[in-house]
């Protein structure tokens, strides 16, 4: 089915970005335009999701050129769902009070919509060169948001983010070019066919490995994770939530697509290596989270660790593994971005992000304590919240494939996640305040309650009724990956 709606996920954020640039001198109208654009994007994505739910793949080619020349949008179940989750999250972040963050500067909203356009483009197009272009769009918009505060620490974070991510995109472009030179194709499906004819060509395998390394850099996987904990902790909460939800998840999603649509023949070669890297990512991330005392640093290291779970599910593969990876991504986007926003609320209430300087929030702010506890429990995976189902799906598939060591490491990581979340709970909420309590800051947090509450309700719904989502994702994964032969002995 062809429909102009397929281009909407890219066009709407781009047009909104342009409009918000035009309104840069009028903050109120700019904010209204920014929120309106996010709402329209959400409606378009919901319409696409409604269409894709029946299994129809919506495609449209710019200029109606023939297949290898046109820029093709292709939206199937998985893409439509990820786009919708993205749009929900963008709207929630934009509703969150932006005062004092990069989003409140004149060029904050355009950059946020630029970042959104990049992420949506990467989800909506099934073409390697466009993947590169959209990663670059995301990178420049993210850098703008990171350095917008102009503090030395933020400039430094921006440089670290730039250097490692730019290296990743250079490797990506090299691999894409090599594959083009080898096959003359760029779209995922045509490349998949052309590479299937070549079988296990060592050159194709090498280029595939380059591509996977580039995406692992983007996803913040071990041993390429160092840009993430360097950049995230110095950012204001809305920017952090936006980056964590949009950037690394796109890398993991593209990895899924490329592993199982472009390299189905090479996947059995890559999967074990990817699995061990995923385990190292989980452990390295959670170790950092256990050590640190700054809320933002703890959460940033958690982001790394949780990417490990998504990559582990991707390494397991098959329809069940892909469905688990997508389920975990959605859970992570909703819960993790929400936790960053809640950390922002904690800091505005208590005055600091460092757990050693705050305390006694459970007494002074019960509702915030409940909100945090709910999301922390969802992240750890306490049944029946969303994290429990996400980890259960991975565990079930891992045991079915006899990957007991990986699963043991995943369970250990879960235990350490619980430990670090309990640390936040005890230090920020339970222990008495280390300094004589000053008057609580008169923070305007009503917008924050709306967006954090809505995200929590979504995550809660996902935990209480996981069935429909799992069915949907299993159907989505079934069309993404050809049925795999049994696991290699």
């Amino acid at each position: 089915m062809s429909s102009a709606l397929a281009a909407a996920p890219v066009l709407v954020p781009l047009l909104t970005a342009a409009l918000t640039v035009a309104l840069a001198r009028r903050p109120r109208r700019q904010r209204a335009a920014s929120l309106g654009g996010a709402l329209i994007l959400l409606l378009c994505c919901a319409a696409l999701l409604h269409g894709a739910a029946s299994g129809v793949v919506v495609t449209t080619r710019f200029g109606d050129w023939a297949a290898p020349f046109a820029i093709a949008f292709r939206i199937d179940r998985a893409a439509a769902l990820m786009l919708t989750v993205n749009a929900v999250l963008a709207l929630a972040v934009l509703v969150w009070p932006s005062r004092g963050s990069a989003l409140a500067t004149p060029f904050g909203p355009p950059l946020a919509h630029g970042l959104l356009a990049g992420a949506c483009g990467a989800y909506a197009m099934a073409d390697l060169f466009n993947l590169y272009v959209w990663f670059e769009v995301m990178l420049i918009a993210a850098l703008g948001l990171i350095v917008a505060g102009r503090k030395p620490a933020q400039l430094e974070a921006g440089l670290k983010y730039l250097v490692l991510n730019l290296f990743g995109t250079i490797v990506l472009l090299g691999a894409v070019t090599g594959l083009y030179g080898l096959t003359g194709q760029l779209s995922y499906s045509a490349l998949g066919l052309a590479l299937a004819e070549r079988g296990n060509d060592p050159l194709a395998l090498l280029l595939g490995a380059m591509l996977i390394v580039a995406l692992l850099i983007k996803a913040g996987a071990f041993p390429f994770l160092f840009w993430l904990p360097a950049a995230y902790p110095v950012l204001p909460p809305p920017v952090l939530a936006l980056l964590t939800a949009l950037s690394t998840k796109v890398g993991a999603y593209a990895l899924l697509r490329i592993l199982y649509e472009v390299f189905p023949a090479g996947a059995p070669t890559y999967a074990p290596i990817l699995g061990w890297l995923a385990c190292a990512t989980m452990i390295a991330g959670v170790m950092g989270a256990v050590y640190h005392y700054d809320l933002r640093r703890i959460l940033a290291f958690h982001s790394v660790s949780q990417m490990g779970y998504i990559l582990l599910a991707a390494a397991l593969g098959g329809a069940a593994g892909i469905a688990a990876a997508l389920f975990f991504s959605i859970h992570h986007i909703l819960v993790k971005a929400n936790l960053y926003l809640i950390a922002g609320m904690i800091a505005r209430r208590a005055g600091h992000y460092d757990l050693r300087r705050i305390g006694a929030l459970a007494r002074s702010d019960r509702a915030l304590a409940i909100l945090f506890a709910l999301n922390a429990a969802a992240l750890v995976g306490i049944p029946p919240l969303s994290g429990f189902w996400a980890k259960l799906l991975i565990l079930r598939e891992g045991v079915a494939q006899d990957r007991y060591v990986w699963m043991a490491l995943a369970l250990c990581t879960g235990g350490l996640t619980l430990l670090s979340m309990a640390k936040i709970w005890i230090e920020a909420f339970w222990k008495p305040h280390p300094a004589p309590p000053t008057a609580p800051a008169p923070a305007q947090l009503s917008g924050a309650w709306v967006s954090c509450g809505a995200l929590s309700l979504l995550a809660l719904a996902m935990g209480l009724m996981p069935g429909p989502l799992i069915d949907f994702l299993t159907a989505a994964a079934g069309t993404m990956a050809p049925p795999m032969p049994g696991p290699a002995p």
Partner: protein
Amino acid sequence: MIEWAMAASVTVVAAAGLYLASSRDLVAISVGLALLGAAVNLFVFAAGRLGQATPPLIAPGAAGPLAAVANPVPQALVLTAIVIGFTFACFGIALALALAAHDRRADADALEQAEPPPQPDGSPGELP
């Protein structure tokens, strides 16, 4: 012959880029990444196959090109990649200079504000 010359130049430029990118000087890192990007751009250009061919233009009235023509796709790709690469080179150098203006050094090892080192007793450092 031209293939070997092209391969050699890609290798030399990429090696120079990697060498600069692994130095400690922030501006050199940015320039090195720009060079590495330039090497990959040459590679993109070469992916369309080198050699003599007519430009990919279609005569009026004809349904397609009459003789073998140069592949236009890598040329379109490389133009995109050059523009993007130039943007990042400018941004990276500007960022490195802004950092150098802040603490009068442009040394990668001196970047400790976003990731404060542990305190003497081993507990994690405090962020600003």
